[in-house]
């Protein structure tokens, strides 16, 4: 069944070097010789400390940056091909949306629904279709009642939901979240993550979530860890987070529960399986303690 799914992103030996603007020469590549593929419907978290190249990788996938070397194929189109035109790029961008870090700097209009309509308007859709998509997208993020509000009066989480609606209105197949939760309060984060998961589960949208938060990454179906422009780990969250010591070497931490169990293991205790989420860790602890009933 796995091989029936389409590959949405295929990166082969991607390298990207920021052009130095008169500063240091021979800047190290932000992304160097990275190969990976993303299948349709996956929910991927990309981790890495600052400067590890994770954001650059996202911007390559969305054609904001052009790879210095390597081959990149997005939704079946090779974007590094010589005959890949600007027209092709804009056609492809409607299918691969991106939600950015700062919610303020991606909202264009002074009214929420006008902002959600911005993408479809750019695509040149008919008015009735735009209206339908705007209502649908606002519904999908639970912001219908704010349709006529001014964006600057909303909370960070609400703004970010509007930004997601703006992308959804273009009916993308893939959405990249470039640290979209990092400027939000815990409540806003939870809202946005819940929407991501639902879009992935119910709408079948491929989600690529770049984040600092391990607990968010633990909820993905696959985790890619970047370090110094290269992929350090690529696998299921349970596999990746079982290498707690290696993660520490990369300046990262596993989710809190996993860290705790890791410490306990080092102290001589043993646990079954690979507990990952808070709930699983609680259960593993309870089991180890022999109780297990009331958690």
């Amino acid at each position: 069944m796995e091989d029936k799914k389409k590959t949405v992103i295929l990166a082969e030996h991607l390298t990207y070097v920021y052009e130095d603007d008169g500063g240091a020469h021979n800047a190290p590549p932000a992304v160097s010789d990275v190969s990976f593929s993303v299948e349709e419907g996956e929910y991927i978290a990309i981790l890495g400390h600052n400067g590890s190249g994770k954001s650059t990788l996202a911007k390559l996938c969305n054609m904001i940056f052009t790879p210095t070397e390597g081959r990149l194929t997005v939704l079946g189109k090779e974007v590094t091909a010589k005959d890949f035109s600007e027209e092709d790029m804009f056609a492809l961008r409607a299918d691969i949306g991106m939600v950015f870090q700062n919610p303020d700097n991606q909202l264009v209009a002074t009214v929420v629904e006008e902002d959600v309509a911005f993408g479809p308007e750019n695509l040149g859709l008919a008015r009735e279709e735009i209206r339908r998509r705007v209502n649908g997208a606002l519904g999908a993020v639970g912001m219908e009642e704010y349709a006529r509000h001014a964006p600057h009066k909303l909370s960070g989480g609400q703004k970010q939901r509007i930004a997601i609606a703006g992308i959804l209105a273009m009916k993308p197949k893939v959405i990249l979240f470039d640290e979209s939760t990092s400027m939000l309060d815990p409540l806003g984060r939870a809202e946005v993550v819940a929407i991501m998961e639902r879009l992935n589960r119910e709408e079948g949208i491929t989600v690529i979530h770049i984040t600092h938060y391990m607990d968010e990454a633990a909820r993905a179906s696959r985790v890619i860890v970047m370090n110094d422009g290269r992929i350090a780990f690529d696998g299921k969250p349970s596999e990746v987070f079982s290498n707690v010591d290696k993660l520490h070497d990369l300046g990262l931490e596993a989710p809190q529960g996993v860290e705790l169990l890791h410490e306990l293991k080092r102290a001589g205790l043993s646990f079954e399986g690979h507990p990952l989420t808070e709930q699983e860790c609680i259960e593993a602890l309870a089991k180890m303690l022999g109780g297990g009933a009331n958690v």
Partner: protein
Amino acid sequence: MISDITLGQFFPGFSLLHKLDPRTKLLGAILFIVAIFMAKTPLAFALLTLFTLVLILVSRISVSVILRGIRPVIYILIFTSLLNIFMTKGAGEPLVAFWIVKIYKEGIIRAIFMTLRVILLIVGSSMLLTYTTSPISLTDGLESLLSPLARIGVPVHIFSMMMTIALRFIPTLVEETDKIMNAQKSRGADFASGSLVRRAKALIPILVPLFVSAFKRAEELAVAMECRCYRVDKKRTKLAKLTFRARDFLTLFVFALFLTGVILVSRMPASLLGGSFVARLLCYRI
């Protein structure tokens, strides 16, 4: 303090003036302004005042709000009135002659009507535009009205996009200014005391970070817009459709009628009203 600044003075509502197409209101405002400058006699001014009162009644905006709108220009009004009173030279004997000051009847009349003209201008146009039209529909209306210019190469769409973005980011930047000011104050910056030059200098540590961040925002916004397939050169469609309804045509017709009325009344000889003293007063050409 600084967050009290509100842009425009839009008061949401459901009156006829609120419901009109923004283009109707823009054109109506132009007709109204022309009428103000065509008015030459007290009778014409009476007509203008009456019409403005009708606008106020229709808009259902409270009088105190309107008076607040006039307050900022009071000093300018007083200053220009004084200039008119003292500087106008009349034909007959001066009413008051004291040292080098000579006040003529014409000066006083001119000052009164000039003041009335400015007040009507402010109240009328704010009634039609700023109070009853949201900034975004005003922008849409302007873009639509100016769209014929696009054919001769004027980048109408770019201007309206810039206006929209400016309107969108004014509250964000005001908020940011407030934050920066507080940050500088917490480090001992003093914005409120000292000479004017000193206070102006104290603004530099606010303006520099504000500009830096505005440029950063601009870049991020540009990338976000591109990611949403925005292209300057490509035809876009619009969610909001401006539609001219019967009421818009009717309103424009009323405005045109009103303008004609003001022009006619301004040219009417007093003899047409019977030539009595009151008639001559009403038709006195200012």
